[in-house]
């Protein structure tokens, strides 16, 4: 499956599930009355007896998935980010993470691009909620191709994994053959003046910002940090050492997510200035995705500004 035109990240997921369904009879899929929104309706149609409709009961769904995993299945539980990570937080913590159960939690509606549904449906906390759980792997693909490959990798990986899938159509940044390895970041643009570390739908903005800054003679490294946990320490520390300042960007609160992970690491290993671009600790609201991104400071322009702040703060070499 290869995407060439902008496509919803979740479409990559839905297609990968179809392939997994063929390949591995252990793969089962659960959803909580949101099969189409998270693109598991294709799997449901093709593999009806390995698809479990759980109704609007996310906690029970996650617990049930843990049971399926304990008994040898590879369950993908699917719903919106807020409902899996917040509403079902305890089942994820106890029955999945603490059990080290082989459950894949795949969600849409992480971030603010949810649009009109507003704050309650915009999870700006999901990465933080999952990151604090011991043993939880967190993958945030940046386009539909990466989502496709990440889903296949998730099924192969043994253990609890959180897969955050964007809702809206985003440009295709990775090729179908770009190597995807959980925990191994990709450098999408080279440069030593500054490094942007981004994940998910924000990676596209990072590339745009790097191009804009390139015109001003600045070489900005762009790192696609598709795995937020375990964080690719060497990619971050190399960037800190070689570039001297970092900017993070994520469709998530600046608290607890990728930005936080990066500041934790550099503070303990190699302190450099870090600017975090993300939702600045406020709830979102209804609106068109682009309007929300603009209002809440998640545009290429905001990123460029943050880059300039970071550059100013760099120690003279």
């Amino acid at each position: 499956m290869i995407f060439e035109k902008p496509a919803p990240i979740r479409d990559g997921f839905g297609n990968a599930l179809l392939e997994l369904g063929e390949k591995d009879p252990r793969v089962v899929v659960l959803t909580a009355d949101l099969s189409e929104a998270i693109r598991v309706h294709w799997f449901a149609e093709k593999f009806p007896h390995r698809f479990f409709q759980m109704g609007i009961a996310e906690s029970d769904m996650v617990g049930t998935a843990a049971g399926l995993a304990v008994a040898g299945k590879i369950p993908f539980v699917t719903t919106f980010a807020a409902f899996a990570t917040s509403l079902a937080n305890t089942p994820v913590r106890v029955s999945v993470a603490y059990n080290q159960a082989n459950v894949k939690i795949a969600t849409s509606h992480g971030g603010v691009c949810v649009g009109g549904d507003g704050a309650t449906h915009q999870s700006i906390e999901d990465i933080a909620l999952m990151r604090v759980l011991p043993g939880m792997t967190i993958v945030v693909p940046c386009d539909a191709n990466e989502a496709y490959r990440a889903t296949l990798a998730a099924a192969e990986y043994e253990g609890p994994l959180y897969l955050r899938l964007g809702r809206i159509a985003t440009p295709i940044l990775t090729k179908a053959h770009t190597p995807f390895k959980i925990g191994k970041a990709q450098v999408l643009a080279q440069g030593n003046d500054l490094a942007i570390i981004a994940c998910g739908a924000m990676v596209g903005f990072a590339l745009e910002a790097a191009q804009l800054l390139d015109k001003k003679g600045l070489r900005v490294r762009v790192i696609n940090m598709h795995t937020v946990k375990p964080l690719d320490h060497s990619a971050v520390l190399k960037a800190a050492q070689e570039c001297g300042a970092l900017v993070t960007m994520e469709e998530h609160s600046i608290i607890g997510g990728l930005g936080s992970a990066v500041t934790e690491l550099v503070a303990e290993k190699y302190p450099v200035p870090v600017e975090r671009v993300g939702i600045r600790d406020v709830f979102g609201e209804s609106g068109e995705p682009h309007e929300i991104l603009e209002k809440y400071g998640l545009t290429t322009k905001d990123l460029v500004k943050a880059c300039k702040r970071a550059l100013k703060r760099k120690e003279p070499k």
Partner: protein
Amino acid sequence: MVQTAESVKLDIDHIKEMATQIRRDVIRMIAGVGSGHPGGALGAAEIFALLYGGVLRVDPRKLKDPHRDRFVLSNGHICAAFYSALSLKGFLPREELNTFRRINSRLQGHPARVKLPDLVETSSGPLGQGFSVANGIALALKLDGSRGRVYSLVGDGEIQEGQVWEALMTAAQHRLGNLTLIVSYNGLQIDGEVRKIKNLMPLKAKFESFGWECVETDGHDVVALYQALTEPAGGNPMSTDKPRAILAHTVMGKGVPFMENKAVWHGTCPTPAQAEEALLAIGKAKGFEDYPALSNPDLSTRKGGKR
């Protein structure tokens, strides 16, 4: 006893027309912005018309009256109907309906208390949350000796959430006789039929085994629904310490034939042509008027479809 308009002391026609206007508003709001949840909202038009047209003792000029009734919308996705009812009874300017689901609006896609503090008692959207809050309000009213009553609306799919069962037990245990829970019992949820997804039947038996007084009624028959909302079941005096549930049988998409009883209309926005057709089917509401159109219609860019 024959149910007549007189016996329920209510202007039945007014309520019916109000429900019609709510349906018009719902279609125009959702088609106007290009997204939203028409199905459940259309199905709850009579419920909202009755609540704001006669049942709730609330006055837009006395929003701080400690004895006012309270309404908690737990199935927040159907808020188009809620906002419409508020606007029809003077709680919101009619034009504001144009801002529904748009940036900077008070009319969020799911009701937000911080945006409308005196009208939205609690934010909802994640299903199963509002009902517990309604219990809390009812508890507080009891503590304060308020004469206010709390009404809360939930969807039937919503009842699959465990927190709803916790709240059912709470209301019974704390003898919240000042609470009425209305279930919009349309048998549908996003992925299809409730009974095929996670069956709730026999719902009345469930409620009764949880210690509730429970009546079943047609959710579109305003006389029957009004009686359920205001009168004791089976001629007994309104119970003072049992919470009361009303299973209101509704039809998803009611009033728009091509939407009726189709789960796909839970959260699909009609195209402009479908919206036209829907308004035609709904008809005009006597005594009410459509809210004025958006001065800058370019703001409405979307074409309809699913989220």
